[in-house]
């Protein structure tokens, strides 16, 4: 049985960090979109999504992340994904997500890059 999706988020200076947990195949993942929209509304436009604990992402998850990418693009912000599994990385590349978002191995690297 797939683990139910949940997330935690925190603001670190100019960066919003979202750490997801569980399979990104559920409508619960729409929370990512809501939190990002709220953050953009507050002027925090650099967002790091740590997917370490979400090793499985299907089309539902991708559709939500595409929505996030588009919103950040429109707001002139920047998005990074970290801790991607090799499979997820391939999927992201194939679907063109990594043309609009950076991939980092570790969350700390992404935050450091965005703080610079």
């Amino acid at each position: 049985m797939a683990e139910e999706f949940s997330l935690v988020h925190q603001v670190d200076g100019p960066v919003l960090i979202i750490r997801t947990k569980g399979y990104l195949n559920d409508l619960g993942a729409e929370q990512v979109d809501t939190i990002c929209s709220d953050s953009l509304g507050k002027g925090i436009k650099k967002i790091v999504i740590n997917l370490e604990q979400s090793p499985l992402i299907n089309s539902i998850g991708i559709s939500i992340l595409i929505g996030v990418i588009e919103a950040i693009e429109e707001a002139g912000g920047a998005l990074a994904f970290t801790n991607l599994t090799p499979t997820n990385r391939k999927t992201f590349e194939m679907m063109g997500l990594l043309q609009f978002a950076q991939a980092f191995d570790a969350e700390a690297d992404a935050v450091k890059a965005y703080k610079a």
Partner: protein
Amino acid sequence: MADERQPQDQSYQEQVLRYEYVLKALSDIGEELCRVTSFETQLKSLLHLLLGTLGVSKGGIFLYDSMSGELSLRCSWKLSARKASVVLTREEVDALEKLADPITFSAADFPYLKHLIAQFAADDLNSISILKVREKLIGLLVVGQKLKRSPFSEKETSFLTTLSRNISVAINNFLLLSELRETNKRLDEKIQEVSILYQATQMIASELQLKTLLDMAMNATSEISEVTRGSIWLYDEDTERFTLCSHLGDSANLPEHLPLADSPLCHHLLQHKVPLIRTANGLNDLHLNELDSRIFGNTFIIVPIIHQGEFLGLMHLSEKISQGDFTERDQRLIKVFAVQLGAAVKNAKLYEQAITDGMTHLYLHRYFKQRLADEFKRAVRFKRNLALIMIDIDHFKKLNDTYGHQTGDEVLKRVASIMRKAVRTHDLPVRYGGEEFALVLPETDMAGALAVAERVRKSIEHEVIEHNGKTIRITASFGVSVHPDSATEAEALIKAADEALYRSKENGRNRVTAAQAIHPPLDPTTSSS
């Protein structure tokens, strides 16, 4: 050579990966079918599955309702408008249903429903797919652009068509399943209603004691509709008044009788013979006077009790436990139950007429014999007391001769009325014959029976009857026997009470005499005025 093949291999690998991804989406659609969630949730999941598979940021699913002919946006993601609908003409439905391939169009080239699609101009839609299963229109699927507006490849358009077909089947199955669930739910409710009614009607169908029957009916309806207040009133055509026969909850505000002339509500019910319902939001245009409001409350349902067109009375229910209004289900069940109750009340009334004396309304001798035998068996079986009081009006023949039969009848009615007031629910007041009466008192010992007899004797003694300006006073003599003290058989119990009554007469009348005890020896007790 190896260098030339490398980019080609990479391209194949990417294509395989893409196909794998689409296949996974198709399998997810299948899985989605098996999930137990709401239809709206499933629809949204399907939309996300499709958008994520194509790499599109926005889209929506329109569903077609063949009943209303309306095509409406039921689910969307990131579209500028959340609501949109249009009623399709028969020609439009035919055109969409009979359309052969392709079912997927570039949004700009879609030849149908231009007015509807124009509402999404701000969303820069890329494609529109017609959702249908075997020429049955399910709806429309609209999708936006890929990231950076990169165009759909031929393969992606083909994926969209394939996914649209799968989504059509999935939605069709969801709809059929929802319809099936809804039908099952309705069926379950019906079965439950029939079962409740069956139990309730079974309960009342065989009951011939009117009072017991109406109490049962009151309890049954309180359970059916979960109310805390209610009453059943029977109507007497001769006196044009309703009599309270059973009630539920506080009866402090309920009179014993309700004259028809005092109640506009009852008048309306008798005239129209249809249920009256008053909800918290107000009522039809019925006028409620103070008395009606006090008796029936502010929210209620009142149903007439009718048998073959004859108005027998009414059943009133109010104050739902849930504090809410009466539901359609409540109304349906109560109406059906009232029909059954009408037949049961009529039967009980006929039975009562057959076993009671028309003038005194006391039970007849024939019924007395049968009930006494039954009560005797019960008393023997459960080793309980059973008392019998025989009553004879003193000098009745002389009274009849002096004042006439009308006065004699009046005396009989007065004595009967005193007896009825003196007894409990399970006691049996009987007109034994002529001026002789009897009282059967289950589970009553000699001391208890003597007390009842003495109370009745005094009441008769104090009764005043007016005749042509004259005051007539009457007295009666009593004989009391009890099982097992006085007799071990029903006939012997009557004989013992009769003998005690005879002794009362012998000893000067207007007195109560206890029968001789057969075992253990008991001193006969005599009390007199």
